[in-house]
């Protein structure tokens, strides 16, 4: 690798995120000692799963020029629906719950996408408003935490705890947590989509939806689609929670909204839309989870997690703005030379 390609690498926004990831891992590993043990890695992946899923969904929306401030409450609503429909002693209610939950998720995605894409309400306002609709609906479904979950639903959390699974799969689950499978499915979806027209149009609409429209792209439909895809990620997250907690709560998703936005920003996805990668948002979510872990290790109250998320968003955006201006200046110089 010559000097030029190293320089090129340094100018990529991904580099900053990866460096930050390595730094965070180094700090946590030195503080907690057993970080690289197989058991810790597995349990970490499990605890990071919800945020990674939400961040990936969020990044679709943000790359497409939108924003979703309702994904936390939306997750709660789907979760409450799932656990309210299920009865622990009737396996068939699990199927019913999966189906109804999916319908709720699609409804959430379509409503958000319709309001932002077709009615052209600014995404910030629109999803902030719908977040209260989801919250209200979740409280109607489940005023106090509760609900039940069928045992087989635990495949979304851990194969080992599903009684009816064959021994071989249980062994597999002891190594690979189900959350990782969900995440990998998400990344495969992204890789496939990014090589199709959808991927190109996603960036086009996120960069400038009016110009994209003039070029013959149905911008409104594209934005609707990003919210629907986002809703599917939220659905995956809700399945994970249902399986993990075996119960629902209308407020459990609230802190996740801000954290998912922070994760996307830390992952180098510009809030202005049109740039960034979905898998980088996943790395951003890992970094945010490590930050939360650090807060835990330092024995600070859990409320600090929300506080720090807010601060990180501002910090990350400030840094990326400075980064972009210096990059632009460097580009100008190159052009003159």
């Amino acid at each position, binding site marked *: 690798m010559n000097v030029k390609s190293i320089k090129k690498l340094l100018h990529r926004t991904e580099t900053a995120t990866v460096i930050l990831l390595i730094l965070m891992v180094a700090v946590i590993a030195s503080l907690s000692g057993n970080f690289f043990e197989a058991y810790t890695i597995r349990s970490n992946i499990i605890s990071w799963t919800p945020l990674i899923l939400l961040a990936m969904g969020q990044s679709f929306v943000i790359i497409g020029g939108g924003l979703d401030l309702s994904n936390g409450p939306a997750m709660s609503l789907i979760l409450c629906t799932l656990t309210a429909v299920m009865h622990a002693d009737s396996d068939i209610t699990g199927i019913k719950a999966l189906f109804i939950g999916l319908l709720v998720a699609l409804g959430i995605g379509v409503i958000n996408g319709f309001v932002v894409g077709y009615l052209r309400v600014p995404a910030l306002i629109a999803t902030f408003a719908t977040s209260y609709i989801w919250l209200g609906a979740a409280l109607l479904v489940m005023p106090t935490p509760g609900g039940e979950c069928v045992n087989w639903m635990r495949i979304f959390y851990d194969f080992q705890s599903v009684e009816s699974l064959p021994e071989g799969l249980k062994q597999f689950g002891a190594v690979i947590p189900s959350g990782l499978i969900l995440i990998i499915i998400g990344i495969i979806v992204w890789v496939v989509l990014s090589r199709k027209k959808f*991927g190109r149009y996603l960036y086009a609409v996120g960069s400038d939806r009016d*110009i*994209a429209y*003039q*070029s*013959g792209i149905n911008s409104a439909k594209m934005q609707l689609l990003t919210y629907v895809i986002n809703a599917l990620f939220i659905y995956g997250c809700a399945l994970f929670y249902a399986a993990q907690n075996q119960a629902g709560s209308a407020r459990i998703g609230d802190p996740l909204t801000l954290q998912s936005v922070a994760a996307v920003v830390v992952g180098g996805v510009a809030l202005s839309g049109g740039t960034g990668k979905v898998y980088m948002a996943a790395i951003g979510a890992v970094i945010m989870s490590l930050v939360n872990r650090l807060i835990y290790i330092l024995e600070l109250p859990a409320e600090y997690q929300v506080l720090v998320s807010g601060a990180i968003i501002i910090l990350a955006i400030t840094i990326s703005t400075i980064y972009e201006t210096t990059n632009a200046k460097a580009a100008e110089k190159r052009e003159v*030379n």
Partner: protein
Amino acid sequence: MVILEAKNIVKRFGGVTALSDGNIVCREGKITGLLGTNGSGKSTISKIITGVYLPDSGTITYYGQQVSFRNPIEAKKAGIIMAFQNLSLIPDLTVWQNVVLSFEKTKKGFLDNQSAKKITKELIDSFVEGFDIERKVVQLNSSEKQIVEIVKAISEEPKLLILDEPTAALEQAQAQALFKYMKKLAAQGTSIIFTSHRMNEIMEVCDDIVVFNNGHNVGSVDFEVDGRNQKEIVKMITGDIHTEDISHTRTENTKDIQLEIKNLQYENILHDIQFSVKKGEVLGIGGLQGQGQTELMLALAGNYKTLQAEVHLNKEKIRLNTPANTIRKGIFLVPGDRQTEGLMMKESIYHNMLMPKFALKRQPFFIPEKKYRKECEEIVKLLSIKTDSIDTKADNLSGGNQQKIVVGKWLPFDIKVLLLSDPAKGVDIGAKRDMYQFILKLAREKDISVILYASDNDELVRYCDNVLIMYEGSIVKRLSGDAINNVNITAASLNLTKEEEVEKDECKEH
């Protein structure tokens, strides 16, 4: 063969009639020039043909069938493609991604990027050599963007191609390459509508022309039948405006030096620039596009913190480090891009004119609305800005009138140096002359020094007392008096050193 015919098109926006009776005929393999002043309805009819606007009445026949495109997508599918002047490129996508946008080819369901790159490369190579198509559009300069815009339109293999002032942002050589390409397309049977404010281009490339004035056709000329008579055409465009040139007299300027610049240096962009400008003098800055002229204007207006220069304004040493500072000293910039830099498009004329006052002068507790409105109305009258009221939004004015507001809002201040960065770009002939005459008068009467960067050499020849030619960030030539003519300017712009009649003034060879 007639490909498209638009008949009796009417379009109103609110109470304003943009088009009262628009007609145009496009024939197979012919290049039709669409002429007219700004606000004459020529962009409106282009936009109606491409489905951006719906006509209020009138018919469009395309290949013998009556059509009504509801949006640009439908028009595109039918083969009508427009290269927009306010570019339709996505900033965050690369050049080749933009060129194939919405026409992507796929291979087994995935995007075929190799063929997209190949097509783009081939097309762009016919305009400029060595163009890096992997760059994002946001990294390109304005002429490069214009090329990509045109290439994008061509790549979609239109049957009817509409080029809306494509040459405004192009350099001479690129424009020539474009004309060659247009002729090639026409020979293949493509019908082209071409708009431009530059008469020589129209004369060179068009087969026939249609002239618009005040929302309706005032004439059409088929060059093959009627011959090419430029004077006749100009008369049609300007209508009742007199066409003879009032070339200004270059009298000896014996006044004091107002602004003196020495050793101006800005990073790698501007090198070792020095010049002086007298009171009441109009100093032109010329040269090919992108040689540092825009940057020089921005530098003089105090936009670059790291600028190094020795600057004397009326013998007082000043610094050009912030815009606030230069404005306080009486140096005002009229930016080139009036829509993004000079005006708040959604605000009224009155509010646009009010803003500098709020920003720069101490205001009484209650704003003296009546007084300010009166002042504003006076300026509007003085500049003959065409509007029914000062509460009209800037958006709703024509380009020339918008530019007048940008100049006008500084008039109540004590202007010493007025920097004009290509003020007439996209402004029609009549409004252009109005504006320059006003500026000349202003300069002479109020002892204002005007530094004018113009991309059109005619403007330099016509209005400047002295002209500096820039090349790669330096001043390579100073022309004054009768030496200011098109030939000399062009020669100096290309930095042809064989030009021997070097002025003895502080001309610096690069």
